[in-house]
């Protein structure tokens, strides 16, 4: 219970820090925030009006609570280029990103957990070694390199897949989600495998063997729950790189989700939109990793004493 409280408090503190960083970035970094948000062509009049409206002429201790209050009420201002509320844009575009992340997570779970587990049960040493080697190699290549190279080979040279992304066809999602999943798969698989190896050497496994349990029962019932919690932690830790991976994958494959929106915001120097996106991304990451942590606390009673 105390650990639960501690974790939730930490998450709230993190969210506060995120909003504060967003505020500092937009309002306190060198440069005129009014000009940044309204763009270079804005007239003197519009700038003056914006300053008045956003309270830029007021002291810092008045500006900051206002920003926090507006952010909590999901008022992230308007986008310079689209001339629409940032929140609306984000809601519209998030469907594609959520879909992409969902498919990738499915792939991470099937490939990183089920394949090593099956290999453990059937027990082919050579296949396991090769899997390990592949995952090490895959873990080095960043998603943008992997995506561009795969697209150049499959769509460019071989012509196997269409270069134009069609969101309606489920097959079109396979390649992008695999590229996004590659890095987390590599990391999770390696950790999961190493942990299985460690657990299998422990005394309780020997004892179970002596008592006559079959290899399959030992792996599934005794070893798997112990190895699973660490692998879950690995997924939680890799969340930030997973999310930033969507930027690249969406840009490469032309999926119009949040990553693409970020890319366009950078290109257009649309600081209002970019700040909103950053805050939303950061809060989403914190929320998911906190949920995963809490889930771990529920599964594994050993962890409960550690934080408190």
């Amino acid at each position, binding site marked *: 219970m105390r650990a639960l409280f501690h974790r939730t408090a*930490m*998450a709230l*503190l*993190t969210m506060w*820090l*995120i909003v504060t*960083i*967003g505020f500092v*970035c*937009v309002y306190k*970094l*060198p*440069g005129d925030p009014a000009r*940044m948000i309204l763009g270079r062509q804005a007239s003197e009049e519009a700038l003056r009006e914006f300053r008045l409206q956003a309270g830029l002429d007021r002291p810092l201790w008045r500006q900051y609570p206002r920003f926090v209050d507006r952010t909590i009420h999901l008022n992230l201002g308007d986008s310079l280029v689209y001339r629409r509320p940032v929140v609306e844009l984000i809601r519209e575009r998030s469907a594609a990103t959520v879909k992409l992340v969902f498919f990738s997570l499915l792939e991470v779970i099937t490939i990183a957990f089920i394949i090593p587990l099956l290999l453990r049960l059937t027990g082919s040493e050579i296949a396991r070694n090769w899997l390990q080697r592949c995952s090490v190699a895959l873990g*080095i*290549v*960043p998603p*943008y*390199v992997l995506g*561009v*190279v795969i*697209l*150049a080979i499959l*769509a*460019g*040279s071989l012509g196997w897949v269409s*270069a134009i992304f069609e969101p309606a066809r489920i097959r079109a999602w396979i390649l992008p989600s695999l590229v996004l999943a590659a890095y987390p798969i590599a990391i999770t698989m390696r950790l999961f495998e190493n942990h299985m190896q460690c657990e299998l050497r422990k005394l309780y496994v020997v004892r179970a063997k002596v008592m006559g349990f079959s290899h399959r029962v030992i792996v599934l019932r005794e070893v798997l729950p112990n190895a699973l919690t660490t692998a879950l932690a690995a997924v939680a830790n890799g*969340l*930030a*790189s997973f*999310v*930033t991976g969507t*930027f*690249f994958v969406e*840009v*490469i494959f032309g999926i119009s989700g949040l990553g693409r929106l*970020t*890319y366009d915001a*950078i*290109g257009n*120097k649309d*600081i209002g939109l*970019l*700040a909103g996106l*950053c805050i939303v*991304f*950061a809060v989403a*990451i*914190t929320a998911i*990793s906190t949920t995963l942590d809490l889930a771990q606390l529920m599964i594994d009673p050993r962890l409960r004493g550690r934080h408190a």
Partner: protein
Amino acid sequence: MLRRLSIRELLALVWLTSLAMIAATAAWLPLADPLQINLGQILFHPTVANWAGTDELGRDVLSRVIFAARSTLVITLGATCLAILLGMVLGVAAGYWGGILDRILGFAIDLFWSVPFVIFVVLIVSIVGVSRLSLILTIGGINWVTSARVIRAESASLRGRDFIRTARAYGFGSWSIAFLHLMPNLSSTLFTLLGYGAVEVLTLETGLAFIGLSLPAPRPTWGGLLAEGLTYFSSAWWLVAFSAIAVTLTLASFQGLAQRFEKTIYRE
């Protein structure tokens, strides 16, 4: 410390040193000007004259990849060193002196660990503007947490060892113990952190360049070259290939060397 290198580690060392040397001397090598536009040879295949082909403005791809290595390596090195330096100072201070300092830093590390700063680099860099200095400061400024965490734990475990106690008994001050006796024992850890840090920084820097946050336009960066290659991926594979190979080999080399140092820590 580096006896019996495996072939992979040797290759990593050779690749990194040759890359650094070629990048450092690029201005004097017989390379085509990376910014020289030649509209008579747009998107040429790799030939004897242009080993890696030419891009959409007729510029030599090989010399662009090499000149891109200069800025990329400088930024990677600068940001990694900054991050390690910050982490080392804070980590040794907290781990060795302990007490209230340690508790504050421990809390700060926990808090900073959970904020996804990678996202905010995008915001900060697009507001401040892209330059070598701004990239080094922002990327280095967010990556200190890992090294601070590791070094804090290491120096806390070294603090109770006999040689530190002996030094204290001989009357050395705590500054000289921390810097003369504690630090040298952290060298393997430092090299490991340097290797993994370089992997992280290079991945981030190239990724930023890929989504459009690279040094101003005509100057090549690896991420920028990859992004250019994406536009012509169906007709000109060589635009993608050479920058992809350069990035991947460099990352793999840093990773391999880091793993090597990591092993020496465990052996001690």
